[in-house]
């Protein structure tokens, strides 16, 4: 049995500039933020990012690492508009494939199932078709003869996800109310890296349905407590709302200098801790 544990630095050493990278979670919920921060410390850039966007997209956009984004939105949930995503879009900083939430999900399903596309009744009639001139439609071969969007597979070079628990082999468990789409991200990628709050020796007694991700779809496992911070990681912790507000209201250079310029994840976590201590 292969022990797949590694550090965030090991993960980003396996990534290359120009890659297509999928990022799990949803909005400002259970994002693999420690892995994103490791990416920011690396020279990897020119990325195609596939994400139900949150501050993962904001951070990478602010740091100029995104060449192309594939997303239905970018939001901080409690703060509806992601400020760095906004700024980057308004500056024309990257190419965008803007698609509907369901189209996105079927793109993941297609990739996970090694299909070139899946038909979706979403997109036609909307400007998603206008702003994505490469999207094609497909006509049902049955009597209904209906026309659908042929949503292309969102295949990726690498996927980054964060779960509550994992074992050293890459089996992953979520404990919150929503799995999001992290299993699909892993299955849609050539290699997948799973960070978790805690590595466990096994899942004896666990509800079977909580075992979301199979080791067969995972390349590396990173133990990273607080690794989704400042997004939520229920039930381990909720979103760090004061810190998210700080992120959304602080000029990028100042925020990056204070929280992201350290040598590792530990320096980030202690910078956050001292910020909280100063507030109280």
């Amino acid at each position, binding site marked *: 049995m292969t022990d797949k544990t590694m550090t965030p630095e090991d993960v980003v050493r396996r990534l290359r500039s120009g890659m297509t990278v999928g990022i799990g979670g949803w909005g400002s919920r259970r994002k693999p933020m420690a892995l994103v921060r490791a990416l920011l410390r690396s020279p990897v850039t020119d990325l195609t990012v596939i994400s139900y966007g949150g501050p993962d997209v904001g951070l990478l956009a602010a740091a100029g690492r995104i060449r192309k984004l594939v997303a239905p939105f970018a939001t901080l949930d409690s703060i509806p*508009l992601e400020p760095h995503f906004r700024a980057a*879009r308004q500056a024309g900083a990257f190419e965008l494939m803007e698609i509907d*939430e369901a189209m996105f999900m079927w793109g993941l399903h297609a990739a996970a199932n090694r299909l070139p596309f899946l038909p979706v*009744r979403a997109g036609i*009639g*909307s400007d998603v078709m206008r702003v994505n001139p490469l999207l094609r439609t497909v006509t049902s071969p049955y009597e209904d003869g209906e*026309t659908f969007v042929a949503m292309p597979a969102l295949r990726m070079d690498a996927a980054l996800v964060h779960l509550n628990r994992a074992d050293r082999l890459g089996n992953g468990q979520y404990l919150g109310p*929503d*799995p999001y789409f992290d299993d699909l991200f892993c299955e849609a990628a050539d290699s997948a890296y799973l960070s978790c709050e805690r590595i466990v020796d096994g899942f004896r007694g666990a509800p079977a349905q909580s075992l979301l991700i199979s080791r067969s779809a995972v390349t590396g496992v990173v133990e990273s407590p607080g690794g989704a911070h400042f997004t939520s990681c229920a039930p381990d912790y909720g979103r760090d709302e004061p810190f998210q507000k700080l992120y959304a209201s602080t000029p990028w250079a100042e925020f990056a200098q204070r929280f992201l310029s350290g040598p590792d994840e530990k320096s980030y976590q202690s910078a956050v801790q001292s910020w909280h201590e100063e507030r109280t």
Partner: protein
Amino acid sequence: MTTSAVRVTRAEYCVIACAEAWRDNGEVLASPMGLIPSVGARLARRTFSPDLLLTDGEAMLVGADGEPEGWLPYRRHLAMVTGGRRHVMMGASQIDRFGNQNISCVGAWERPSRQLLGVRGAPVNTLNNPVSYWVPKHSARVFVPKVDMICGVGYDSAAAAGPSATRYHRIPRVVSDLGVFDFATPDHAMRLVSLHPGVALEEVRAATAFELAGCDEAAYTREPTAEELRLIREVIDPDGLRDREVAR
């Protein structure tokens, strides 16, 4: 009318108008976005539409008491959308005469002057289940002749896209802080259905950048019953958060 002595606020008329969107919907998921639609959905659930399903805003279906009765993570929520057992009330940064809606960006899409949320689920919603809209501040910047990016599909766009787009497409109503609107005209152009009491017709016209049908026949939004007012004020929104979304 049982509330003669009590002043009903504009926010409360808006709650009533939103609640009415889910009347006679049966056993479907009510997906309200925004505070007043959310109070409206819960009011409908507690009064005239008891079979509605509601979520906790995350992944659980909850009863009127807030206790979980089912599981609805995003992936299953999307199946609820495409299965059609749902009526969503979305927001709209822009909406036009035929119900095309925009929440993505303002200006040229290639390089917007104001980036907003993105299309989110508006395309899939509008092609699959009834979609109503809630606009807390009715203005000519929201009710525009043409939206900058079609996220939610309007009647003209659905018709142009063909039978697969029109098959399940329906926009039952638009509620704003000024009144209630629908598309029940021969060409599916937006129609004024009712003004909220205290709103003048001219006010609505001035705040809408296209011609509204129905202005001659428009009624007033109905009064809440005493029981509805009690539920809104004492049970569903005792802290009066609704007044933050619509003042007056």
